[in-house]
């Protein structure tokens, strides 16, 4: 699991994840991702286009980070999910509470 962080302008942080959000992948990435985003209460958009697998551990991680960001005035928006990954977000209804958009431009302006 790899992570790339870029400044997307307007105070938005764009994070690209590459790999699998299964238990081993989450073990690799969760502490690092949280450290990049939560302490500064980032407004973050998360690129899932290169994430080939998402399980419930990834959902838990997204909700935990989004909640922590919300308490600090930040926000987490997901975008670019592949169809089977998007289906997991829909099945769990987590897309009702962590916004999911089709691309970076839509994610950057997401309000809810």
């Amino acid at each position, binding site marked *: 699991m790899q992570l790339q962080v870029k400044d997307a302008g307007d105070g938005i942080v764009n994070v690209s994840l590459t790999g699998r959000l299964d*238990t081993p992948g989450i073990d690799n990435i969760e502490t690092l991702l949280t450290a990049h985003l939560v302490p500064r209460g980032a407004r973050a958009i998360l690129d899932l286009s290169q994430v080939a697998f998402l*399980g*419930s551990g990834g959902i*838990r991680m997204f909700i935990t980070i989004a*909640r922590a960001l919300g308490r600090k005035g930040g926000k987490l928006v997901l975008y670019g999910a592949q169809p*089977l990954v998007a289906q997991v977000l829909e099945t*769990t209804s987590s897309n009702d509470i962590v916004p999911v958009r089709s691309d970076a431009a839509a994610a950057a302006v997401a309000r809810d």
Partner: protein
Amino acid sequence: MVRSQRLEIRFPGTHDGFAQAFLRLRGALDAERLDAALRYNAELVFEEIVANIVNHGAADGREVDVRCTLEPRPDSIILTFEDDGVPFDPRRHPDPSSPRSLEEAKVGGFDLMLMRRAASSLDYVRTAAGRNQLSVKLQRNCP
């Protein structure tokens, strides 16, 4: 042509054991002619069940012994999981309610929900030897 080779993986219920076993399962699935959705569902079932065993299976901190069997059939694939952890029948746990807000959202319960959605059928038994045995059927050409 369906390759019908049974695979059995035995591993400790630890994060390292999980990672190694998942690699072996994925290698075996590479050899099957599975459509993308079925392949994803097979991995999802393994992920959710084994993560549950690793995280919750040991009552006293001891290492749980886990066995996973992959059995390809012409119309389906069967994944069977056996472990000597605490008794756990995933059929008896309801799905979590849909979260109304980020603050109210629970972060647990999605594992069983995803596993049940992926499976065509589930069979569970606590064996006479004191092991959980969960068999999951995944239909080929699933919608």
